[in-house]
């Protein structure tokens, strides 16, 4: 008997959740399928029911939410959609999402792969996971029995593991637009195309009176989940934006890399990942500072 599945194409979130409630663990949501389909082909994953959510209008698109001062991204929004999104994404550091998406996979895959899929597959290298964590994003989940929201810092719990219950659908991500001068940058250590990150770093800085008032460094691909260090972030607070302290930058880098636990695999050794993560953190901080100075030059 041929290995196959039953295909469903719901046109609403409610319909999709009802299907998942009905078929439970025998059903799999399909965004673009760029990770799922590989697992299917390799025999790593099987499912009796495939629930294609990519055509549900409510799950696609990027909107600015007035009154919430936030940007909401539908879970089935493709990486290409993010890259070509106009001003709606260009709210200060949120533009970093475009930067991260441009690094990912290939043009063909970006036309199909979804933000939600990247997050729910929860690879330790997932770029969208690092950036949305960096921007203090929120994930919105829905099931046949209700909704809930969770901050991105709590979304991933392990390799390919999220907090999603088996009946839950990730519907959207939201990111608050920060006030005041802020900047974000995303860097990866990787080959030029298609490759997953050996290490990736996101840096977010907020400025007040020409000093760093808010700092966030997130490292990806160097632990089962994206890693941040409160100590490292603290180390940058108060640093001059115009004349940054190399000591503080170096100290922050050391602190955050200490929080990582990279594996040794075909893409790179653990020691290399730590070393390159350190370099990326320092470059990232300097670049984020530079972007701050550009966004808010001294008069």
């Amino acid at each position: 008997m041929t290995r196959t599945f039953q295909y469903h194409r719901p046109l609403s979130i409610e319909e999709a959740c009802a299907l998942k409630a009905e078929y439970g663990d025998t059903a799999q949501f399909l965004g673009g399928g760029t990770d799922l389909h590989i697992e299917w082909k390799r025999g790593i994953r099987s499912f009796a029911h495939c629930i294609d959510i990519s055509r549900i209008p409510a799950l696609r698109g990027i909107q600015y939410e007035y009154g919430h001062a936030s940007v909401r991204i539908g879970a089935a929004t493709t990486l290409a959609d993010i890259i070509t999104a106009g001003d709606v994404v260009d709210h200060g550091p949120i533009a970093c999402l475009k930067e991260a998406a441009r690094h990912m996979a290939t043009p063909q895959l970006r036309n199909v792969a979804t933000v939600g899929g990247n997050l729910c597959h929860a690879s330790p290298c997932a770029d969208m996971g690092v950036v949305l964590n960096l921007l203090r994003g929120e994930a919105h989940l829905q099931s046949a029995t209700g909704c809930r929201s969770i901050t991105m810092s709590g979304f991933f719990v392990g390799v390919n593991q999220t907090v999603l219950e088996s009946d839950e659908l990730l519907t959207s991500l939201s990111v608050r637009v920060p006030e005041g001068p802020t900047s974000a940058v995303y860097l990866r250590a990787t080959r030029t195309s298609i490759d997953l990150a050996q290490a990736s770093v996101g840096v977010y800085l907020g400025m007040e009176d020409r000093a760093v008032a808010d700092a966030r460094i997130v490292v990806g691909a160097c632990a089962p989940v994206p890693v941040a260090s409160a100590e490292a972030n603290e180390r940058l607070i108060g640093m001059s934006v115009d004349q940054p302290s190399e000591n503080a930058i170096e100290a922050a880098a050391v602190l955050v890399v200490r929080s990582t636990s990279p594996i040794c695999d075909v893409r790179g050794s653990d020691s290399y990942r730590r070393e390159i993560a350190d370099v990326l953190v320092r470059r990232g901080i300097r670049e984020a500072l530079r972007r701050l100075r550009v966004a808010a030059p001294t008069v």
Partner: protein
Amino acid sequence: MPVLSVNGQSCAVDYEPHETLAEVLRDRLGLHGVRVSCGEGECGSCTVLLDGAPVTSCLLLAVQAEGREITTIEGLGTEDQLHPIQQAFLDEHAFQCGFCTPGLILSTKALLEVDPQPTADDVAAALSGHVCRCGAYVEITNAVLRAAKTMGDRT
């Protein structure tokens, strides 16, 4: 029976949900310009256009392409009248074995629609989802730039 719109034609074609678009285009519709190499969306040889956007058909289910416009290399130009991109690839000798060529030509078509005057760097970025095992990358870049000029001169 499901219907796929391929190269401007509605085709009634039978397939199982798990079958890939590449398999259906090749095995059911005889469109062997769609090549399958890695089978995992990395090499780009299976590239077709879906509503004008390049996608790797080996990694798409045929069902995912329903209701969308599919363009394969067979839908571009004829033997008597090649598409300017095809002509440019010939003129610049932008292939050796030709296996990767259909996918590249389709990605090129999509690129030039969005960016009619790309730089060499733009070309490299747009075609970064294609592997040419014969290493004709320089000639391919020249072909794309040549096609851009030809098509630009026409408008």
